[in-house]
């Protein structure tokens, strides 16, 4: 399939989707197309509906209004936030990665082909030598790579990541973004949520600004703009340009001055 054709395929389409909890709308009138080969970042403040959007894409919840069209047989993988994982759980890196092969009745032990595939995936992500380690012994970047390996072992067409750089240092954030960029170049479609505008969102090829509804969508130059960010985050924000990249800074407070 040529690059052009691959880009044209719609993986998931949301049309006028509405969703809420306890009659409180979380998503309202959301229309979105996720195409094959794209790399999309969803930005928005807490409670803007990012998590609910992920849940709808993962099909763990169903919208209360609107329509969701999913490409038949679409394989989706999910990478959770590092901060939500029980790192004391007694599993090694290899055991964790092989969890991807848990569907249906299987032998408890991994087959030779499963071991080879897991090793190749870990090797591709540069952590094959850590396969026997307990998951607690990994650094933040290595932990993220382990979950990427587990997701990749599902051979997904679309990978969804929930705040993949939350709670990691700058170096790890660069590593993760670089790695995701490589996977996207290899044809994997990616959607991630982030609250980090400068460190993550500005580096992605496509952004969706979400606040219950889609405020804006497009290239970072089209989304990381003062008016759109203020409408999305409800706060004063200024956008500066540096070396061809937008940089978001907080706007000035208007403090009451003593008379």
């Amino acid at each position, binding site marked *: 399939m040529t690059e052009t054709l691959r880009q044209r395929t719609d993986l998931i389409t949301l049309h006028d989707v509405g969703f809420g909890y306890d009659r409180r709308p979380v998503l309202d009138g959301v229309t979105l197309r996720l195409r094959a080969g794209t790399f999309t970042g969803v930005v928005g403040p807490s409670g803007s509906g990012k998590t609910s959007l992920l849940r709808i894409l993962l099909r763990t919840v169903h919208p209360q209004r609107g329509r969701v069209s999913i490409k038949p047989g679409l394989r989706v993988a999910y990478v959770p936030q590092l901060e939500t994982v029980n790192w004391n759980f007694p599993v090694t890196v290899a055991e964790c990665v092989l969890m991807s092969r848990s569907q249906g009745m299987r032998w408890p032990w991994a087959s030779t082909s499963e071991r080879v595939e897991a090793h190749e995936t870990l090797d591709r992500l540069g952590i094959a030598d850590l396969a026997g380690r307990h998951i607690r012994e990994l650094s933040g970047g290595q932990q993220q790579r382990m979950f990427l390996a587990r997701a990749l072992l599902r051979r997904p067409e679309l990978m969804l990541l929930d705040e993949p750089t*939350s709670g990691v240092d700058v170096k790890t954030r660069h590593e993760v973004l670089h790695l995701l960029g490589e996977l996207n170049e290899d044809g994997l479609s990616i959607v991630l949520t982030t609250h980090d505008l400068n460190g993550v969102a500005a580096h992605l090829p496509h952004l969706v600004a979400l606040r219950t509804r889609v405020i804006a969508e497009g290239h970072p130059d089209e989304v990381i703009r003062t008016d759109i960010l203020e409408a999305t985050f409800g706060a004063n924000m200024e956008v500066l340009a540096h070396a061809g990249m937008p940089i978001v800074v907080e706007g000035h407070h208007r403090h009451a001055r003593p008379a």
Partner: protein
Amino acid sequence: MSSIWASFLEPFAYQFFVKGLLVATMAGLLCGLLGVYITLRGMSYIGHGLSHAVFGGFAASSVISFNYYLGAGIWGLASALAINRVSRSRRIGADAAIGVITTASFALGIALLSLYGNKGPSFDAALFGSIIGVADTDVWVVAGVTAFTLIVVLGRYRALLFSTFDPEVADVSGVRVARTDALLMLVLSLAILATLNIIGVTLVAATLVIPAVVARMLTDSFSRMLWISSIIGAAAGFIGMNLSYHLNVPSGTMIVLVDAAAFCLVLMVTGGRSLRGSARLDEHVDPLLVTPKPIPSRNAR
């Protein structure tokens, strides 16, 4: 030396003891195996709760002269599924769900007994476990439940592991988490029901939790934890039953004390290091419910 050996072998001449020993060893293995899943899922007290819930079914079966195993089993399974359902609804935690459902069931059991009296088997044995109360049927029931549990754990090993480690991701990765949870609750209810006579309502929780905690202190591998916990549980059942006979103390009590001794021994040998593994043993956070950090804006008011 020979007198000690003779004293050790003496109870083996009695059929009731051999049957009790068999049942206690299998019960220990069964509880040790299932305890790994229970403790890692943050449901350590489900054993305590379910045994009380089964007691409600026990009383209800007695009142209506219904088969004890069937009545209490159905009751226990219904309670287990209700606990699982309520705790997964996220609004109420597993601990609160266990507290509400099982104590209500236990209270209902007591109320039924007060109103209609006990027409069934001994409740003392059900509360504290009894070496004498083991019948041929009990041996076959425990053997059957143990075999069924081993088949479930072997056949659904990976699904059980994934849904215990991260149910949300397991669910979106093609694992039928709800079905796997229901299966685990089924074998747990059956295990509690089958072992109730030998271990007792009040002590089943300890035989589920202690071997698993000791195993976690000794290993960082899930598969090894299953082996170690099962072996400790079986050994505690065997040793506890022997001590129960020689010291004339209820069997459940001695089995739990042997489990507790194993915990103390491992703690002494490994020092505080081993506790690191069992700390936050059951910590689970719903990955899709964690509130993302807000943008640090001084202007956001």
